[in-house]
């Protein structure tokens, strides 16, 4: 059957550096091709500062994409990631600037807010049986409005919280390895990626994530409390959005309550370009990272080449399609 023939590599191969990832390395192809192309096209592209800029630009979208990967593997979708990120940054702003509490409290509050909102989405989906698209669309709108309400429709600045901007912009790596100014934001992206990979590949939560996406009813009939696990997964994804909220707030040194719309599509695009199926049941964090990188390399490279902005959009669209097509061809050939 054609389904069998189009079959991608084993679905559970979710670990970042596992045998499954070995196959995934081939998906680097599009990314490498882009990198080589831009390097040849512009001397300004392949430079330490620009590479770091690209990584920095990937950090927020990458973290969001990792969160949404979890939900997509369960067979769901999360449209609220962008506004949830914003909501969490506003919460951090309220806690740190309006209430003047210390930095760690703000960090915990942002992540907790994300987790709770994720849990709410999960409850809508698991308990109230609302389709994930609608549950998270509603959540997206509610959070968008609430961010404005809570912040009083104005940005909240973190000028009174010293060290807040270091969350994303400082560089612990540079203090250890001088000359390698990898910003903390990028470090956090990789830490989140590795932790999530571990959870997906090695823990019971990860196993159920795949199982729910593969056949929820069969899992339920195996005596598993599928609702509870699903809620846990949405909550985890929400918590990850909270981290993204801290990253963006730190980069902008402010919580911008109107931001966030449109980020969800970009995050989902990164996930799908990375080979995760929207039908659920299969996907890798490594793929998502590559997908997010493809998107930001493309954006950055086209800008460096000073391509006219309207053409940038056209080219981005075309390359996204081509990248996935190339991956498709490769998979068909290997199976």
């Amino acid at each position, binding site marked *: 059957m054609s389904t069998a023939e189009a079959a991608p590599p084993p679905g559970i191969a979710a670990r970042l550096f596992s045998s499954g990832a070995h196959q995934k390395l081939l998906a680097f192809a599009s990314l490498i091709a882009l990198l080589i192309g831009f390097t040849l096209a*512009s001397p*300004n*592209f392949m*430079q330490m*500062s*620009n590479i770091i*800029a690209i990584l*920095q*630009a990937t950090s*927020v979208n990458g973290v969001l994409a990792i969160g949404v990967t979890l939900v997509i593997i369960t067979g769901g979708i999360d449209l609220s990631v962008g506004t949830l990120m914003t909501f969490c940054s506003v919460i951090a702003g309220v806690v740190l600037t309006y209430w003047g509490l210390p930095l760690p409290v703000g960090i915990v509050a942002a992540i907790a807010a994300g987790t709770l909102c994720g849990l709410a989405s999960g409850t809508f989906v698991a308990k109230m049986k609302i389709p994930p698209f609608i549950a998270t669309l509603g959540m997206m709108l509610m959070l968008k409005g609430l961010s*404005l309400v809570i912040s009083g*429709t*104005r*940005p909240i*600045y973190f*000028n009174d919280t010293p060290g807040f901007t270091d969350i994303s*912009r400082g560089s612990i790596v540079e203090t250890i390895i001088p000359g390698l100014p990898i910003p903390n934001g990028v470090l956090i992206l990789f830490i989140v990626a590795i932790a999530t990979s571990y959870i997906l590949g090695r823990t019971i939560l990860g196993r159920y994530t795949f199982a729910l996406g593969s056949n929820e009813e069969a899992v339920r009939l195996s005596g598993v409390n599928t609702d509870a696990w699903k809620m846990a997964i949405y909550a985890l994804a929400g918590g990850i959005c909270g981290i993204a909220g801290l990253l*963006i707030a730190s*980069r*902008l*040194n*402010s919580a*911008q*309550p*109107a*931001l966030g*719309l449109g980020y969800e599509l970009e995050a989902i695009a990164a996930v799908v370009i990375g080979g995760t199926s929207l039908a659920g049941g299969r996907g890798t964090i490594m793929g998502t990272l590559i997908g997010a990188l493809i998107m930001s390399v493309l*954006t*950055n490279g086209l*800008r*460096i*080449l*000073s391509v006219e*902005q*309207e053409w940038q959009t056209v080219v981005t669209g075309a390359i996204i399609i081509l990248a996935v097509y190339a991956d498709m061809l490769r998979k068909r050939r290997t199976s």
Partner: protein
Amino acid sequence: EDKVYIPLISKGFQHQFWQAVKAGADKAAAEFNVEVTFEGPDNETMVDRQIDMLSAALAKKPAALGFAALDSQAAIPILKEAQEAGIPVIAFDSGVDSDIPKTTAATDNVAAAALAADKMAELIGGAGKVAVIAHDQTSRTGIDRVDGFVNQMKEKHPGIEVVTVQYGAGDHLKSTEITKSILQANPALKGMFGANEGSAIGVVNGVTEMDRKEIVIIGYDSGTQQLQAIRDGVMAGAITQNPVGIGYETVKAAVAAAKGEEVPTEIDTGFYWFDKSNMDDPEIAAVLYD
């Protein structure tokens, strides 16, 4: 309570600029004892959403209407409806190509951006490369500010080359990334103009992250972060409109028009250059918002 009701349909509501306009409108509302609502679409491409807002506003049978058109032609039929219903319309922020509005309370964006160009030329010594980051490619304010800046450079400052104009939708983060790419692609760049608040903050962020302190940054509008950047010397200065004044004048004119009084055909709310040196002057401080 049978208060006079005046809805203001603006181009946006989430940005600080619009919140300042709203503050001005609320101030006037309190002063003249009228009820004002303020509404605008999420971004400046949503021409049709604005029309829907207009028609909902008309359904509420207002005494007068304030309107900042995203596309003045597109709105004409519904403005005609207002006219037929005897509801006076006051244009604000930018004009409407029609004689329906009783008056227009607006900033001349082209002239304001030209002033930014002159200041830029002065600060970088009349020669070199500069870049522009604007919020929107198709909206009136986006077009006017970019055209005002670029044309002024062409006409008055031939030594200066505008290497690129890019659009970041007023999104701080996106504008930051664009700035960084432009800096990367143009090592010899001397100055950047951010054509609205979000764009200007993006430029400040990008320049800071790339550590290119030599770049002369000129912004537009105010807001806490821009004011801070100017105080810190990261931003050379900015153009400010008088958003509070715009809101105030709009409501004031609307109240007058609703009573059938004569209103002036044009209310120029003005624009100002401000930098570290003059930002605390009372007449400037009065038009800044944060």
